[in-house]
């Protein structure tokens, strides 16, 4: 544990630097591009004076440095500003989007990751057999399909043709409110099944390749051969010697992949009409919604930094021989 402290401090310092740089860049660049949130909702009827009044009221006509300082001050004290594209406080929009994304991404990721570990291990053990090789080909095939194509295909086949799943959205609008808590949960689960499974499949094949390579590497190590030679049951060998040492890459990937999925799941969210962070961010960028974009950028960056740090910590716990990179 003592080794962790300098590591954590260094990582925290690093993450903070990155955060400040990215947020500042986004802030400045965004304000320099033409357009501001006013135009997002009312260009059909607005006059010049109305636009100027809007800019004055929200401070968009002040120098960028002044706006920046004001924003940072507000942000740190918890005031994330007003989202013009959603006409609600940014905190509310962010909280809802974050919760919705989590609801989708966590189950998708967990399923996919567990599947990846199972698949990768199996593939490594059956290395060379035709079934394993075939599954490797399938993996490459699936990974070659862009996510929006996969999502479209899944939606078309399972929702529109086979009618096995709802055609998008998070809840059944007519039924949802008249259901009890259990019923509402079931409703959301029914709606997230298809997008989550689609994502899980992609995650599974993506992570399994790393894991397979890692297991293959471990299988040739001495301690595995020793364990086998000493007559231990194969499942014991797997559980106690192979997996703990092979899980490193899979966990590292998890730390990077999972936070990235939140904002990067934009295609799947678009196709399935899932109201998550990805969609919210795209709409905010297109709507020049400064405050919302900045808030999302901060949250994403922090999440990714936390995720990769966490992944490293878990990896070390599993396998103390892993070197921590300061």
């Amino acid at each position, binding site marked *: 544990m003592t080794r962790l402290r300098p590591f954590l401090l260094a990582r925290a310092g690093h993450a903070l630097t990155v955060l400040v740089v990215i947020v500042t860049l986004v802030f400045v660049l965004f304000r320099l591009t*033409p357009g501001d949130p006013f135009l997002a909702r009312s260009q059909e009827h*607005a006059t010049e004076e109305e636009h100027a009044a809007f800019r004055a009221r929200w401070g968009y006509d002040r120098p960028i440095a002044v706006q920046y300082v004001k924003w940072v001050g507000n942000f740190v004290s918890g005031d994330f500003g007003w989202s013009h594209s959603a006409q609600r406080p940014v905190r509310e929009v962010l909280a809802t989007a974050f919760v919705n994304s989590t609801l989708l991404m966590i189950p998708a990721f967990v399923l996919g990751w567990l599947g990846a570990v199972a698949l990768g291990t199996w593939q490594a053990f059956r290395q060379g057999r035709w079934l394993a090789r075939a599954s490797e080909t399938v993996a490459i095939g699936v990974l070659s399909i862009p996510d929006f194509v996969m999502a479209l295909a899944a939606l078309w086949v399972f929702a529109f043709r086979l009618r096995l799943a709802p055609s998008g959205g998070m809840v059944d609008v*007519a039924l949802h409110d008249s*259901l009890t808590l259990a*019923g509402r949960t079931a409703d959301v689960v029914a709606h997230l099944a298809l997008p989550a499974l689609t994502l899980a499949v992609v995650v599974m094949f993506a992570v399994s390749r790393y894991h397979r390579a890692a297991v293959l590497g471990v299988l040739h190590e001495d301690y595995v051969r020793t364990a086998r030679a000493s007559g231990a049951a194969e499942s014991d060998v797997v559980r106690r010697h192979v997996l703990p040492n092979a899980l490193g890459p899979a966990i590292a990937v998890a730390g990077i992949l999972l936070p990235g999925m939140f904002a990067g799941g934009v295609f799947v969210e678009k196709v399935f009409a899932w109201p998550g962070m990805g969609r919210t961010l795209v709409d905010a960028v297109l709507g020049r919604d400064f405050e919302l974009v900045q808030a999302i950028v901060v949250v994403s960056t922090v999440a990714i930094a936390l995720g990769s740090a966490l992944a490293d910590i878990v990896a070390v716990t599993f396998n103390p021989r892993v070197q921590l990179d300061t």
Partner: protein
Amino acid sequence: MTFTRGKPVRYHEFGRPAAILGLVAVFGCVGDSASRGGTLVVSSAGDADVLFPPLTALAQSHEVTDLVFEKLAAIGPDLNTMSDAGWTPRLAQSWSWSRDSMSVTFHLNPRATWHDGTPVRANDVRFAFDLYTDPKVHSSDGRDIAEVTDSVSVSDSLTCTAWFKRAAPERFYTLVGGLVPLPEHILSKVPRDSLLQSPFAHAPVGSGPYKFVKWEPKQRIEIAAADRFYLGQPRVTRVIWTIAPELKTAVQRVFTGEADFIETLTPAEASAPHDGVRPVRLRGNVLGYAVFNMHEDGTNAPHPLFGDRALRRALSMALDRKTLAANIVDTSGRVPYGPFSRSLWSADSTLRQAPFDVDAARRALDSLGWRMGKDSVRYKNGKPLAFSIVTPSSSEIRNRTAVVMQEQWRQVGAKVTAEVLDFTAMGERMRAKKFDIVIMQTFAAPSPSGVRQAWSTSSIGMGGANNPGRYSNPVVDSAIDNALTAPTVTAARAHYRVAYQALLDDAPGIWLWEPAVTAGASTRLDLATLRPDAWWTSIPTWGVTGSAPRGAEAAAKKQ
């Protein structure tokens, strides 16, 4: 397909609702058992912007506010805007004109209440007028109302009088059709310049047949029948708008049974048979047209290309509008007769239009000095005949129009770029007047006065859809002014004709298409009445019958 009452037999509907209902049956029972009447689910491809009548800009918002709020009177089925004939009493149970017809006194229905129980009073009407016309509020409806109405005075708690500024024939329509009485007891506490962000704007309290329940942004909007609506209970108890990210998904929701109504079906969908959904013809009152920018970018110098009337006319002749309309808005879509929707009472089919004649267009371009270059683009003094068409990314129909126009003009040697802009970039370009051609799409309100917003000099600088190309023609201006003050419909028509013909001759724009709108309605809907230009206002008369129960009744039947 046959079904007995209450039992779903249709195959297509089975899978998904069965799965959900199965889960519901296993896990949950109904929290609140709703009364008779049922739930209507409308599928929509766009979210509302704000549910506050003075400030709503989107049609989607109007669908909700027209049901949550009540106006003094409702326009009659003949959509007469030139007098109060045919208008039916709503919030006002009667009204009377003064001798000189310059003021009208409204007697409010004493049983009218706001959804929080407070009775509606004449003060609310006066308050609403103040708010609408307050410059801090920036309401475009308010601007129109303020132009014809001087003030509103209150005589007693149920009587108020509106005083007009001049004898404009459409003054009643402008005031009563535009002014929505608002609850003074709630809104007087809200500062006028922050109405847009106020809680009221997102959770309105009205006096209409439905009261607001909830709004989950980009997901759905729900309203429920008001308790004891003073003009009679609506048949359907709950109305929910389910918002899809794009039109295709919105349409699919009706076909899978998740929604009951969609406002627009594409031609393919309308003609393909779908169990449980039938096409419903609505009156289209949408007009799509292209606007030439008369000036160069934001300056006052004439546009290098479009400042020349002959070039504008030549380009108009090169456009095959019939093919364009047929491709964009299906075979029943029509080419406008002029700068107006044919559903207007001022519509005139006898006007003189530039014909579609590619050879004549080519000859005209040649004679203007535009010579065909080796790359199939015309040049004059070394400059190519190149320009761009700007459309907002949110409007697929306009984007497609630009693509077809681009190709048709390519055939006569013009190099056209189609720029699809996201709405903020679009707003910026429109505001700065930096465009060559922009494609507009307007909903023709029942009054023909829209032509003033689009083409008169007085509209320049009003922003948005108001004469974006900054076209100015005194002949058109005076004809429109005369039409607006003409005492009779016949006289007004004659003046409008003059304005229309001048516009067609001058070609500051090209009037492209008028879609005939086909909606899709579930067969369980009983569409008792359907106002063809504003279908949502008929919702209180609709009923939900037939099989495939939805919502609370579904779970209730399960028990």
